[in-house]
């Protein structure tokens, strides 16, 4: 014991520092072999990935340097703390004081030599500070830093100038070259152990947080608060002067000096901690419980132990040295990527995380992200600065992400808010009856919902962030994925990677959009029935979806018949958001029929004036776009990159299949006269729309339920008892777009009852009845529009529901198909009473209403004419141009009911 104490007793901080300096110099000399000053970052990556022994040397060099700095500072403090002063000669003390600065410079140059993104920014900061030195700024900068990106000068100063200076002053100070041998040995052992377990940091290139070395992070925090950075130079000079004059001061000043130095050190320590652990991207303050804390703060301190395990793959893949990441040592055979996502170019780390610098299987897969592209990780995968940051920033403004419209309407239906247009988000769901209803039955379909299992997108897929649309498994990848799920030992899936591409097929949309408005199924010509799977007739007219929903064949949309896909019309700004929040899908949508089927000259945009995103997508899909002219949407001027306007003809291209079409003009009837100016294309050209009526909602506390927001099973759930599904030409309503009225298709979106008392027992007998119609985009377009009677003499179109008109004694009578609902006395499927007004609450939008009584009469006036005159008769055709003059020509045989 005495012997150990004897040995430890000789281990002064100075001795330990001397030992560490020697270790640092020796390891530095060895490190010069694998380090390449012309390719600094690449050579360090090669060291980390391919050469564990060089990696150990690098770690020893790094840790001995850090410890040398720490023990040198402790040694200085120890000197100040001693009661009796050891007098130094002024000249030696001056050199020692400058030596502190030189030690920091040596450390900083070492940091710069990593040449990672942190180092490159640190270079610029140092250069800026150096240039602020009066008179000699430029001289010092040019002499010690050199040109940006050229490490030669810094390397020379690091290995020679600064090291020699430190060695000389250390010798002059301690009169020793060699440390005490036992000290040297145990300091070496400790350094090697640390170096084995903790690899020296290297910025991975994707974390946008920029931080200096740990000992400068406090200074970085100070600089954050200083607009005039010259002050920081003055602070450094004052600090050095204080240290220099300290040994030559009296007792009283010395005491004040010590206390001041202690306070400065404590303050700097706090600043360092705050900079290290509470500053994230763009030096913003971040708390540990915030979402991106781990990726923007902790990943800066990622460290791992060295793996010396012999690897055959390492030996056999010597050519891997020019690759960026260790992942490719094992996964270089993987295929299936599109060129822009080829790992030879982008690596694996940018999407999957993990550790790209170690060849150890476990360590490289640690914290790996198996399914990147989910919105929970999109900021660290698809949305990083290097990849698609602009889209990541605006993605949450997409209604497919925030579900604002769906939530707002549901709360409105539950009488929990006064209008259905309030902006909200799926993340704001609480515990109200409506919110629980949404969580039980609806909100699984939002992009923020994470994809949790690998495999292709299918009918049952929901959510998945970027992957919901961009994930594509080819046949090989699909088979490999299926085999792996069936047999865990099957490793084929490691060869076939799904592609992440712009080939967004209708199947990607189908999972979510085959529900609610059922746009996907309508488009393909399928209407949902109330049949059970086992009741489904086995013939081509029926289709089973998700194994339980039975659909019957109906006419498909004419665009579908032509091979046009969803994304051919719906552009990236509609689908991924444009950064602005919209209340409902029709507000976010920019495309309209008239953008393609225009009369006269279209609005066009030249290729050179395209926005960047459109230009990139257009070039990637269709090659060289120079000189091309594109159509654009009337709403918000979004370029339609799959169109071309050439020689007074407009062409349309399929984005996925590259099919070419000549765009047709609207029919003569569409533009004839002014009678139908405010009638939307879809009001006439929608063949049918699905509707459901008589739905009842009740909360059953014993029903096995599911919280779709948290993705957990639970007891108790809202249960929907469906009524009847219909498919017929839609009703029509009026949408008021800031004063401009437009006739549009509508469907009985919410004719239902809700037993709120079943959810909230305190509300006895609180049955809510709603008769709300919703605007519809049926996606069942037919080339030939509805005939005149279909609108003018059709009770469904006018909002009365199904039934028949009869003319008895020159009076028009309506007999409904359905019985009156006891809640409001109207037929079950009606919106309004025959020639009546709506109830107080009648639509799922504030700007939607049924025809008023005068409008109903005007429509029916024409309808009654149509009972005798054919659509194409002269009189009816003339009525389109001037109905008033036609009315004046009425004969005695004409029926005038109003």
């Amino acid at each position: 014991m005495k012997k150990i104490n004897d040995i430890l007793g000789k281990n002064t901080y100075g001795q330990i520092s001397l030992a560490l300096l020697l270790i640092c110099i020796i390891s530095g000399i060895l490190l010069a072999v694998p380090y390449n000053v012309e390719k600094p970052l690449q050579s360090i990556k090669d060291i980390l990935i391919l050469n564990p022994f060089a990696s150990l040397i690098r770690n020893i060099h790094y840790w001995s340097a850090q410890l040398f700095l720490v023990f040198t500072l402790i040694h200085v403090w120890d000197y100040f703390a001693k009661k009796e002063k050891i007098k130094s000669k002024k000249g030696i003390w001056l050199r020692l004081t400058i030596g502190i600065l030189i030690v920091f410079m040596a450390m900083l140059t070492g940091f710069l030599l990593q040449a990672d993104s942190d180092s490159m920014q640190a270079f610029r900061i140092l250069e800026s500070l150096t240039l602020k030195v009066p008179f000699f700024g430029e001289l010092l900068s040019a002499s010690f830093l050199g040109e940006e990106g050229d490490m030669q000068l810094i390397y020379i100063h690091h290995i020679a100038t600064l090291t020699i200076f430190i060695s000389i002053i250390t010798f002059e100070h301690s009169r020793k070259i060699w440390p005490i041998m036992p000290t040297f040995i145990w300091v070496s052992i400790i350094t090697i152990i640390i170096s084995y377990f903790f690899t020296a940091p290297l910025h991975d290139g994707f974390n946008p947080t920029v931080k200096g070395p740990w000992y400068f992070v406090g200074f970085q925090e100070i600089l954050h608060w200083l607009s005039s950075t010259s002050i920081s130079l003055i602070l450094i000079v004052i600090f050095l002067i204080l240290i220099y004059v300290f040994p030559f001061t009296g007792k009283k000043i010395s005491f004040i000096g010590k206390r001041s130095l202690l306070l400065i050190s404590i303050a700097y320590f706090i600043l360092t901690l705050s900079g290290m652990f509470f500053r994230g991207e763009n030096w913003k303050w971040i708390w540990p419980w915030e979402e991106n804390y781990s990726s923007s703060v902790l990943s800066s301190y990622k460290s791992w132990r060295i793996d010396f395990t012999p690897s055959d793959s390492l030996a056999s893949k010597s050519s891997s040295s020019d690759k960026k990441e260790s992942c490719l040592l094992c996964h270089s055979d993987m295929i299936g990527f599109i060129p822009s996502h080829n790992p030879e170019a982008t690596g694996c780390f940018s999407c999957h995380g993990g550790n790209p610098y170690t060849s150890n299987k476990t360590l490289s897969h640690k914290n790996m992200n198996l399914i990147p592209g989910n919105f929970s990780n999109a900021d660290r995968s698809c949305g990083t600065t290097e990849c698609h940051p602009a889209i990541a920033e605006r993605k949450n403004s997409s209604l497919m992400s925030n579900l604002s419209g769906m939530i707002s309407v549901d709360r409105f239906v539950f009488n929990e808010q006064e209008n259905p247009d309030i902006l909200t988000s799926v993340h704001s769901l609480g515990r109200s009856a409506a919110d629980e209803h949404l969580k039980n039955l609806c909100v699984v379909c939002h992009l923020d919902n994470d994809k949790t299992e690998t495999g292709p997108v299918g009918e049952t897929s929901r959510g998945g962030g970027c992957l919901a649309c961009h994930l594509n498994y080819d046949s090989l990848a699909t088979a490999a994925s299926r085999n792996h799920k069936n047999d865990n030992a099957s490793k084929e899936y490691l060869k076939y990677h799904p592609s992440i591409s712009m080939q967004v097929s209708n199947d990607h949309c189908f999972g979510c959009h085959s529900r609610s408005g059922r746009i996907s199924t309508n488009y393909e010509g399928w209407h949902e029935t109330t049949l059970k799977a086992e009741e489904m007739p086995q013939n081509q007219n029926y289709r089973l979806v998700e194994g339980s929903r039975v659909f019957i064949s109906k006419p498909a949309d004419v665009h579908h018949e032509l091979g046009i896909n969803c994304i051919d019309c719906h552009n990236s700004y509609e689908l991924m958001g444009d950064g602005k929040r919209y209340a409902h899908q029709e507000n976010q949508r920019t495309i309209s029929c008239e953008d393609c089927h225009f009369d006269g000259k279209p609005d066009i945009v030249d290729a050179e004036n395209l926005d960047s995103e459109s230009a990139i997508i257009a070039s990637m899909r269709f090659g060289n776009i120079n000189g091309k002219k594109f159509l654009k949407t009337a709403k918000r001027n979004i370029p339609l990159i799959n169109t071309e306007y050439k020689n007074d003809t407009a062409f349309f291209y399929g984005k996925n299949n590259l099919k070419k079409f000549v765009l047709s003009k609207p029919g003569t009837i569409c533009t004839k006269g002014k009678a139908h100016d405010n009638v939307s294309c879809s009001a006439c050209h929608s063949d049918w729309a699905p509707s459901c009526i008589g739905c009842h909602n009740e909360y059953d506390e014993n029903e096995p339920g599911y919280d779709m927001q948290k993705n957990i099973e639970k007891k108790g759930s809202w249960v929907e008892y469906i009524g009847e599904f219909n498919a017929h030409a839609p009703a029509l309503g009026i949408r008021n777009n800031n004063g401009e009225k437009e006739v549009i298709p509508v469907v009985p979106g919410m004719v239902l009852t809700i037993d709120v008392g079943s959810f909230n027992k305190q509300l006895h007998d609180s049955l809510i009845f709603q008769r709300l119609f919703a605007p519809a985009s049926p996606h069942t377009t037919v080339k030939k529009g509805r005939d005149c009677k279909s609108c003018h003499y059709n009770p469904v179109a006018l909002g009365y529901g199904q039934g028949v008109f009869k003319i008895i004694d020159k009076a028009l009578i309506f007999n409904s198909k359905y019985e009156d609902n006891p809640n409001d006395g109207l037929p079950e499927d009606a919106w309004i009473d025959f020639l009546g007004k709506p109830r107080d609450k009648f639509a799922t939008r504030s700007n939607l209403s049924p025809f008023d009584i005068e409008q109903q009469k005007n429509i029916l006036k024409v309808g009654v004419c149509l009972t005798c005159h054919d659509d194409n008769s002269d009189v009816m055709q003339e009525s389109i141009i001037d109905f008033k003059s036609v009315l004046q020509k009425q004969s005695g045989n004409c029926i005038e009911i109003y």
Partner: protein
Amino acid sequence: MLLKDKKYNRRFFFKSAIAGMTIAMIVVWDKMLFTNKNIHSLKSVKLTFNPNKRINFADNYIIIKNDETIRVFSSRCTHLGCKINESSKNQLLCPCHGSTYNFDGIPTKGPAINPLEEKDFVIDNEHNTITISV
């Protein structure tokens, strides 16, 4: 005679000689550095850029397109020279100390207080290149 004077002894001579040589060396050093800099310095740089993109971070420059107008700024943050390489919500962001600038190069949040340095440039539309005066 001068050396016999106590004030101007041999020590004085050597000190003066060293000081003189040091000053001379600094002058030579200074000339050498700036001659070297002049030999290797560039008058302008030619970069490719995407003319459709609102913001191009190209080399050490930020090319900003506002409607039909293009402006080029140095990417060097005026606070401490960090390279600005990110934009968000119509702001240019400095990653080091959190300064932000609008697309006219004016600081909107500190610590930076001076606007970004604007550069002269010539665009070659045919080849989508821009020549920026350094």
